[in-house]
């Protein structure tokens, strides 16, 4: 039996418990035995939103008795395949999620994904929610600490997709993340820190992760590269490649290890499929020449303008027009995807004519003919003066009178 003192302690404890929010206490009770989970959880977005241990794990958080705590509704969650449904219990509930403005279709979408279908087929190695989002330490997706934040995501996908053994099992390439990281998108996101640069989910979908099909590549890339796609759809490549079942953008740009294609690559790219000396290679060369020639004119104009600046000319207006020409040159690259001369010619012609105009005008301004004519007149004058002075000197030394 309790002593009187002990009874008072119990009353005090109960009173204390009633003043503290329920969730914290519950975590505290579980945390007595699971301190690591508790610490990780305390940082998470769920802790902030009053989600408790029992929300996912069930059981009784109010007790420190091991047996009583893990009784009744308790789930160990060691069964990975069951986790999506547990998360969905809240995350597919519009009532609960609407306050956070979160979508509720993730579970449904997930079930259509390669991951979800494998899970449905009973494959325990396929990714479930906690593989990407973490379990206790879940952060909001835009939190930089989150495993699915834009810059962390490639690493998170790499956990499985760079695992040679695991990928071998599915016949998948385990080098995709490394390729991505080496490519321009990965460099832009991971090195330059441009959060707008695409990560894995930008092309493959988020919860519905699936590789885009052959006919869909242009849509996926076109989501960002709008102009390029428009030109591509207008061109001969689109229909031809679709009919032949050739992957569209990927054929020239590769899929994950995408590199910046400069204009020079047109020359070799065309020949790769069409063969040396074909009409298509000729067309590619022409497009290349158009862009190169226009860029060269604009470069020349810019150098000349800068030279003019060193000669203290007012070249503000010319620099503005060069900027305009550069805009046309930037436009030319997407337009080249129409694999036809005309649209490229339109913009490069403008860029080129601006470059030529600016060159003419600055050449005219740089012209120092006037100053040189002035110098010649000046020298004539100097010469005449010297003649007069020498005559004066001669007369003086010969004893002539001085005027």
């Amino acid at each position: 039996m309790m002593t009187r003192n002990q009874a008072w302690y119990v009353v005090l404890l109960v009173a204390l418990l009633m003043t503290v929010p329920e969730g914290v206490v519950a975590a505290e009770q579980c945390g007595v035995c699971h301190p690591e989970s508790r610490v990780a959880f305390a940082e998470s977005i769920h802790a902030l939103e009053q989600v408790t241990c029992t929300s996912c794990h069930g059981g009784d958080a109010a007790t420190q008795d091991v047996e009583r705590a893990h009784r009744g509704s308790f789930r160990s969650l060691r069964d990975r395949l069951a986790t999506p449904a547990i998360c969905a219990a809240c995350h597919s509930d519009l009532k609960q999620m609407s306050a956070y403005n979160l979508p509720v279709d993730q579970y449904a979408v997930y079930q259509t994904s390669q991951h979800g279908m494998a899970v449905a087929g009973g494959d325990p190695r396929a990714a479930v929610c906690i593989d990407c989002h973490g379990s206790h330490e879940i952060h909001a997706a835009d939190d930089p600490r989150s495993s699915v934040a834009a810059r962390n995501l490639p690493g998170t996908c790499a956990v499985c997709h760079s695992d040679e053994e695991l990928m071998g099992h599915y016949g998948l390439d385990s080098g995709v993340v490394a390729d991505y990281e080496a490519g321009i998108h990965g460099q832009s996101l991971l090195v330059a820190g441009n959060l707008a640069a695409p990560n894995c989910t930008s092309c493959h979908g988020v919860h519905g992760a699936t590789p885009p099909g052959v006919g869909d590549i242009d849509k996926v890339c076109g989501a960002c590269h709008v102009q390029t796609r428009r030109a591509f759809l207008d061109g001969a490549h689109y229909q031809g490649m679709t009919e032949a079942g050739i992957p569209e953008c990927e054929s020239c740009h590769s899929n994950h290890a995408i590199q910046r294609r400069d204009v020079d690559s047109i020359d070799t790219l065309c020949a790769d499929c069409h063969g040396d000396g074909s009409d298509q290679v000729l067309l590619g060369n022409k497009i290349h020449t158009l862009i190169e020639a226009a860029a060269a004119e604009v470069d020349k104009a810019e150098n000349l303008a800068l030279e003019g600046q060193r000669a203290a000319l007012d070249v503000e207006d010319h620099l503005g027009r060069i900027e305009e020409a550069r805009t046309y040159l930037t436009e030319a690259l997407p337009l080249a995807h129409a694999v036809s001369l005309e649209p490229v010619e339109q913009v490069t012609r403008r860029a080129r004519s601006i470059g030529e105009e600016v060159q003419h005008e600055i050449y005219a301004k740089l012209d120092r003919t006037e100053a040189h004519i002035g110098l010649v007149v000046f020298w004539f004058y100097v010469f005449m003066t010297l003649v007069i002075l020498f005559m004066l000197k001669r007369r003086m030394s010969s004893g002539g009178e001085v005027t």
Partner: protein
Amino acid sequence: MSRDKSRILDWFSRRLNLTEIFSLLTSYGLFYAELDTRKHLREALDEALERPVVSYGRWPRVLGLIVVVLIALEILTGALLGLYFLPTPQTAHASLGTILRDVNFGWFVHQIHFWGAQLLIAVLIVRILRFFIQGVYRPPRELVWVFAALLLLVCFHLDLTGRALPLTETAYWSSVRALEVVKAVPVYGAFMIFLTGGGELFVTDLTLLRFYVLHVALFPALAVTLIYLHFSTIRRIGLTEGAGDKKRVGRAALRNHLVNLAIILTILFAFLVTLAVLTPLPFQREADPYATVPGVGPPWYLLAPFGFLELTSGVLPQWLAGLVLFLAFSAFLVLPFLDRFRVDTRRRWVVPAIAIAVVVAWVVLTIYGARVA
């Protein structure tokens, strides 16, 4: 006409001592003798013009007057540029742009100012070499040397401070390189850094303004004073008689020499204008104090000490290298008082040999400095 002229002259002569006023001009190298200020101007001038002078036909003698004329030209063009130049960090570069672009003959005045300064320094160097070789430092001409040497150093400072004013890219970094040389010299370096408002850093907010004040007021005043003192000593002592001069004494009167001067000045001016038109100093971008432009050395005349500092860095501690520079410049200034050079008639080859050695060392260091910059 000439009657009218002489009447005007007489009118003034009764009220002003024109001869005295004119004699002030003689302090700047035109006459190498004193005018009798009690006489009427015309009389005094006639007397002075007919006075035979030591071998005026020899061209090196005109270097002094060239210096005076170039300094006068610098003061004039400088005053003109000052009408438009705004010495603040925000406006300096843009206002030079205005001068070069919009002001009539702005580019011309600017180029003349720049090339005149380079020519001035070159002439001063040639002149000091002539003094050294012909012994124009032996008693009683010690002060002639000291003032000429000081004048050269002041002109270095004038060019250095002027170069940085427009804050163009290479000019700015060229000045910073030059200040590195200046800073290495003990005592003097600390003083200059203090004067230009720089502490540990070479360039602060105040530096441009201080450079400006030094460039337009202090250093020009110093230069003009030194020229006055320099020619005062010459008027007191008379011109040097170099080897081979004696037989030509009295051959030419001062008025003949003035014609020679006019000829050489015309050629000089023509040369200057040609330089300004054909090889204009480019108008560079505004300097960014946070982006060092590589490959910019100090001005050409400071390449030798810069090369010396670069050569000895790592070998000598910097203070020691600076001390060597300090001693070298000091020795240059007080050369007449170094006993060894006082009178050395028996060994005539010693002085030219040293001169050649100094010049060769200077040229070699300059080439080295230009290559490391």
